[in-house]
């Protein structure tokens, strides 16, 4: 079960125009930055990207937006990404904004083999328009469908050649649930080790969910909001 590929280029070699991708990360934290760079250089277009945020103008998914490779974004927060907001307001980019917990749980449902979930998030708002509502124990819930993504692209701290993954700190975020949700899952890791080197009790994503793994070099790990306190 050796899932190791040479690098990001090989990992994305069969991603085609118009496909749906899930990309892990929260803001710039835990972002699959090497695979995104390869996508930005690939010329692949018409992508639908499922990701909590869209990076910043010159890093992360922002690079794909700048290249006009993205047809549609499914996200929960645009934040201060100027290019994203500009393309959204001008109508150049199709954007589906959904609650963050809904986004995470729709990934989870896909990874658990469940077609849909029920959540109260968005009841009474425009998020609920056109969606089925069910009442359980006196409270309304929206039915939200599991995602159907061609590829999931995640970043982990450590992984072994069998695809078992361990994340570090809050860089975990969406990565484990997205790793479970892709038809094909690509994992990039800071450290690639041999089977047996990771403690089975400490594995966050079992290798069965991961199809390709490679070691990324020289992670930039950019910080979006550097905040410190005085000594």
């Amino acid at each position: 079960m050796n899932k190791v590929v040479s690098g990001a280029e090989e990992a994305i070699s069969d991603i085609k125009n118009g496909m749906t991708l899930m990309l892990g990360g929260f803001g710039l934290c835990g972002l699959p930055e090497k695979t995104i760079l390869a996508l930005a250089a690939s010329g692949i277009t018409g992508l639908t990207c499922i990701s909590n945020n869209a990076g910043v103008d010159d890093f992360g998914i922002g690079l794909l937006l700048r290249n006009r490779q993205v047809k549609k974004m499914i996200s929960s927060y645009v934040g201060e990404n100027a290019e994203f907001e500009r393309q959204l307001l001008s109508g150049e980019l199709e954007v589906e904004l959904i609650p963050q917990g809904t986004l995470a749980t729709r990934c989870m449902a896909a990874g658990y083999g469940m077609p849909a979930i029920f959540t109260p998030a968005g009841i009474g708002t425009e998020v609920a328009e056109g969606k089925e509502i069910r009442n359980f124990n006196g409270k309304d819930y929206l039915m939200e469908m599991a995602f159907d993504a061609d590829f999931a692209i995640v970043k982990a701290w450590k992984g072994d050649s069998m695809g078992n993954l361990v994340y570090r700190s809050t860089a975990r975020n969406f990565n484990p649930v997205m790793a479970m949700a892709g038809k094909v899952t690509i994992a990039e890791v800071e450290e690639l080790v041999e089977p047996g080197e990771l403690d089975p009790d400490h594995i966050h994503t079992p290798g069965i969910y991961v199809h390709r793994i490679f070691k990324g070099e020289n992670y930039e790990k950019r910080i979006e909001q550097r905040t410190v306190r005085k000594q």
Partner: protein
Amino acid sequence: MLDKEGIAKRIAKEVKDGYYVNLGIGIPTLVANYIPENIDVVLQSENGLLGMGPFPFEGEEDPDTINAGKQTITKLPGSAVFDSAMSFGMIRAKKVNLTILGAMEVSENGDIANWKIPGKMVKGMGGAMDLVASAENIIVAMQHVNKAGESKLLPNCTLPLTGVNCVKKIVTELAVLDVLPDGGFKLLERAPGVSVEDIKKATAGKLIVDGEVPEMLV
């Protein structure tokens, strides 16, 4: 009248011993600085952390350790990290005792709008829709009026909603108010130097004033 720090200080009094608390971006983040040291409180950050600590010292920033506002933070002893699905699982399952967030508008029946101004500004709802749909104890921290001088406490929200019938309490630079179950903003406290008349002028929704309104202690 209170400044932002003052609003945060007043809200910190609502944080009780044993609470798990989620703090939103902006003024709510400042509340962490004023939680009394003699009570035991755990801060939840919805990107996947319980036990959020203060900002790191310069040189100790860890790009892998951030809060929901993407700021570098630290983890306190006893903290736990988890994925985004579990994070919203604990929110949906009402394990978080208190949620404090900002708003653009609140209506007198507790509706909240804070994610979009059609045609002008779209930030996205982030985790706010999940939080307000499930949390039972929601305090809004905001300015009483917007930059144009218009009240943010309204009969009905005019902006796209984040959630309905969910806000329980509001703390602004002018006042502390409860949102009553049957509708209406009940004035509980005045900010130092602010009169009931000032608050009436700044409140477009139904304001309920019952007897003497004390000045808040901050």
